[in-house]
């Protein structure tokens, strides 16, 4: 009977599952945060007003092209393949670099599996977040930019003090979505041997040959994780849009002075 097996597997292997959960959450939390930072940076660079002349124009152009290639590459290839390419490819690239310029800067490209996993998921998240942030910045009213410029703020000051705080609020739901996707997508990191939930489950199933029951437990674990995370994010969203922004204060308008002077 399968139900008995479910319970038995859970009881016998709970420590392994727990370690898997820890690894999955560690990678997805760190990668979502790093990815969001990458996305914000790219979004800001992407919206720098076009320069008319000078060296700046060309520097900006080069940066834009590089960033575009990055975004297109990571959005256009499967994360599973990226993980393989990064983990097995990096040492080869560093050898090539050493042959070419004589030094590999003391870094031979042989990286920890977890680190490679975080790197791949972060870069992936960053590529998606870049588009989300760009949309968030574009959706901020042009008047906000103009008002900030009119009091003498540079592009960076405008972004940091006026636009990004508004963008953060706009992109929070999309960022949460990305986080939930990362929890699930870390499963593909099992191909480079990261001991997250899927990898652990495969090991457990390999021992007891009960594939359905083991993976059914993994299913439930993923479901519980994503539901909890979604609820936590909802709570933050509610707090952010809370009273302050929608509730008009009537008493205040009543107390309006007769003569504003």
């Amino acid at each position: 009977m399968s139900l008995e097996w479910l319970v038995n597997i859970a009881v016998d292997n709970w420590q392994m599952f727990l370690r898997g959960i820890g690894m999955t959450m560690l990678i997805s939390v760190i990668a979502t945060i790093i990815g969001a930072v990458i996305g914000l940076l790219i979004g800001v660079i992407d919206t720098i007003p076009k320069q008319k002349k000078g060296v700046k124009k060309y520097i900006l152009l080069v940066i834009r092209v590089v960033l575009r290639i990055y975004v297109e590459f990571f959005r256009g290839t499967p994360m599973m393949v990226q993980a393989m390419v990064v983990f097995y490819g990096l040492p080869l690239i560093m050898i090539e670099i050493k042959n070419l310029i004589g030094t590999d800067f003391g870094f031979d490209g042989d990286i920890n599996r977890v680190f490679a996993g975080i790197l791949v998921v972060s870069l992936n998240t960053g590529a998606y977040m870049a588009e989300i942030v760009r949309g968030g910045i574009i959706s901020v009213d042009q008047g906000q930019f103009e008002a900030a410029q009119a009091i003498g703020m540079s592009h960076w000051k405008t972004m940091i003090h006026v636009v990004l705080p508004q963008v953060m609020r706009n992109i929070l739901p999309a960022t949460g979505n990305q986080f939930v996707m990362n929890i699930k997508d870390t499963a593909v990191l099992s191909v480079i041997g990261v001991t997250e939930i899927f990898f652990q489950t495969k090991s457990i199933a390999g021992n007891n040959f009960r594939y359905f029951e083991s993976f059914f437990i993994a299913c439930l674990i993923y479901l519980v994780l994503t539901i909890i995370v979604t609820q936590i994010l909802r709570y933050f969203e509610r707090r952010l849009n809370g009273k302050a922004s929608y509730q008009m204060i009537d008493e205040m308008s009543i107390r309006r002075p007769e003569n504003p002077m």
Partner: protein
Amino acid sequence: MENTIIDIKNLSKSFGSHEVLKDINFSVKKGEVVTVIGSSGSGKSTLLRCLNLLETPDGGEVNYDGKNILTHMENVNDYRTKLGMVFQQFNLFNNCNVLDNCILGQMKVLKRSKDEAKKIAEEYLQVVGMSQYINARPAQLSGGQKQRVAIARALSMKPEALLFDEPTSALDPEMVGDVLQVMKKLAKDGSTMIIVTHEMEFAREVSDRIVLMDKGIIVEDGTPDEVFNHPKHERTKAFLKRALKNN
């Protein structure tokens, strides 16, 4: 001419093939209140926006204190702090409350200390009659209140001149009075002001000079008495006839 602060020469600006400003010559003296009137699409707002370079002119000179700003674009942010701008759509920073709106520029651009910035902001919020709304967010204010905060924000930078871009056009008639009253007070106190407006009575009352624009050129430039009572051009007469009838 030594107290001329803004002096525009041969200014031109096109959007695509549409010439919005054609060879504009225009100057403002310190302490002067200049009102720019004209029908919609005549280039009034564009002229104002060219003054603080929110629009980059295609040709001509924008001289401020005798220096052509267009040849010193690297100082544009310094220059903009000298001109306070008030927008038709208020454009208060939505992420900040009333007080923060007024101190953000002071602290981040002018590098004033928080205490000093706060003191200055409170002083000007008092002037515009908004001091009891100090913690309100823009979403909680009516249009007229937002515009008065926007004026306080501009004043808090202690600019040398103020630019008003149709400050009352997005307000309902009841709110217009509050805002105009604040502006009248500023005009009386000797601020240099350049105002784009459709409020003819207000223009006549507060202005030292009135400029009428039509199709990208300045048609008439004179005292309120000259423009309203003795207009030289047919175009002015026609515009005033229509504008005053509507009021």
